[in-house]
């Protein structure tokens, strides 16, 4: 569904991503793990058109989207839950969600939107409870759910999440990952960028390891989990101590 080839992205003269290639097939959960500053957020922002690549190709459903504006990319079915939630703080929860359905409204799918709204409330009951509360007053975890719900309201075929666990308490993180796994189970296609490598690899089918803007390793998620270098570098395991 998504094919990235030889993507080069730079901020001014500073090269951030180097000849990066990856792909996401329909129905997969793919995760990209890597340390801070490895370039993960840059990658997602480039795919959605918030940044322009210097060279390389991004193909979404066989169509080249590298030079399209963000709104066109979203209307083609590629949604992003951005880093740091980024909800519309001064608007209530319900309006945030309805704004997320902009592309659906444009397609004249009013009824679907309201059905989707109920579905999102079903996925995140707390959002229904706080339906009329201003989004800025929600807790971090609730805002994250709102951000995910907002992205889902667009009815995307591919949903990308940028560090959904960042800054959240461990219990909430569990919930968030359970929801991502649920999305995958329902047949959705997910690209998950995460610093919390362990949780991400546990729910993903495949993974890529990003280091300094380059992919250094890819493979089935269980293989990456078993890879001891990954364990040491990203899972924080003291592998030697465990084996004594």
């Amino acid at each position, binding site marked *: 569904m998504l094919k990235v080839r030889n993507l080069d992205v730079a901020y001014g003269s500073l090269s951030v991503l180097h000849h990066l290639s990856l792909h996401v097939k329909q129905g997969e959960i793919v995760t990209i793990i890597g340390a801070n500053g490895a370039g993960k957020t840059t990658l997602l922002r480039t795919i959605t058109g918030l940044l322009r690549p210097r060279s390389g190709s991004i193909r979404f459903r066989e169509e080249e989207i590298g030079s399209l504006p963000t709104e066109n990319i979203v209307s083609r079915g590629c949604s992003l839950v951005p880093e740091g939630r980024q909800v519309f703080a001064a608007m209530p929860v319900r309006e945030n969600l309805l704004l997320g359905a902009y592309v659906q409204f444009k397609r004249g799918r009013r009824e679907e939107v309201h059905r989707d709204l109920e579905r999102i409330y079903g996925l995140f009951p707390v959002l229904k409870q706080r339906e009329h509360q201003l989004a800025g007053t929600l807790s971090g975890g609730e805002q994250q759910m709102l951000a995910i719900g907002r992205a889902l309201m667009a009815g995307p075929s591919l949903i990308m999440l940028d560090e959904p666990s960042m800054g959240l308490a461990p219990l909430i993180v569990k919930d968030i990952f359970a929801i991502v796994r649920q999305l995958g189970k329902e047949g959705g296609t997910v690209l998950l960028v995460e610093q919390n490598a362990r949780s991400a690899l546990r729910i993903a089918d495949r993974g890529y390891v990003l280091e300094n803007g380059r992919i250094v*390793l890819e493979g089935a998620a269980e293989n990456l989990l078993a890879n001891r270098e990954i364990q040491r570098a990203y899972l924080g395991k003291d592998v030697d101590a465990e084996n004594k």
Partner: protein
Amino acid sequence: MYWQPDEERMDRKDLEQLQLERLESTLNRVYLNVPFYRKKFDAIGFNPDDLRSLDDLRKLPFTVKDDLRANYPYGLFAVPLREVVRVHASSGTTGMSTVVGYTKNDIKTWSDLVARILTAAGVTADDVIQISFNYGLFTGAFGLHYGAERVGASVIPMSAGNTKRQIKIMQDFKTTALVGTPSYAMLIADTMMEMGINRNSLSLKWGLFGAEPWSDAMRKELQEKLKITATDNYGLSEIMGPGVAGECLARNGLHIAEDHFLVEVVDPRTLQPVAPGEVGELVITTLTKEAFPMIRYRTRDLTRIIEEPCSCGRTMRRMVRVMGRTDDMLIIRGVNVFPQQIESVLFEIEGTEPHYQIVIDRKGALDDALVLVEASEKIFFDEMKKQTELIETIKKRMASELGISVEVKLVEKKSLERFEGKAKRVIDNRKL
């Protein structure tokens, strides 16, 4: 029957994407972790970031066996030794042996790739597999063993040697698949005949042979004598071991695991890629090896790639059976000849047994090639005329098909040395 249908029948566009991703990540890893490659890349001014397409691969330098020998034992490992769960080495007939390593994931991949070729060759979990490769540092035995276990078959780790015992085990244990070298299989077949054992007392159905080149004629003979479906498979320890490529039941070329290995065919003299479908030296780049990645390894094996799709439905391209080694190549009076070619000519001629030897001398200015070939017993009791005719036929065929003029001598059956491992067919007495 496919072991990994999604991979084996992958759309080629998806395959290209996967190859590009894996090549890029391999180059990134290799540049970081293997000083040998980093130096080599720096020397030619190549940075992995410069790779834009699969074609850019040809900008990269080759790796040859001597590089592995020079970095004996662990110099080319891309991971720390504590990550390596298996070490193998090649037999090293000339010079030091070469050492290779595997991480846990490498072993997993290896098992799956061998499982692929076993399945392609007809083997299932219901089969009983007898592995007659020597268990030890050599990758053949363990490679097929783990792959067979992965498929779920019953594995008999027989190892090589003790031919009579091999046959007894085949009978008693009801072996359905034999794995080994084709020449050893032939030895088993001949020994069986000598011992007067009826083929029908065996349960053999499949034969997976490799580790040395063998001709179609030899396949036919093995299939007839042992009443099996015999397939070729290909591998080399520097790349992984068995499982790099293997025939499907169509037996018309070996499917290469292109999602794990990037193959090129180059002219052994100019080192440039040949036109698609042409014969040349096989060069392999590993895409997923963690412990021991190889970039453009020159295998010294001669083959060509079949671009057309196979009837079995696999989208992975095939290579034809290895025709010989570029370093086996003989130059007899200026003509490039491979022992393989001599073998295939001989087998087509009636009255010969599939055992031969080539002795090359240079007594004056020119090369003299003498082909010793075992002839069936009958002919020695026949008239002199028949023997002469046979010799003339052989000489004529050699000349017309290979462009070389040779002397031919008929020898008695079993007078030539037999080999349990790779057969040694060439005796080159020239001091070149």
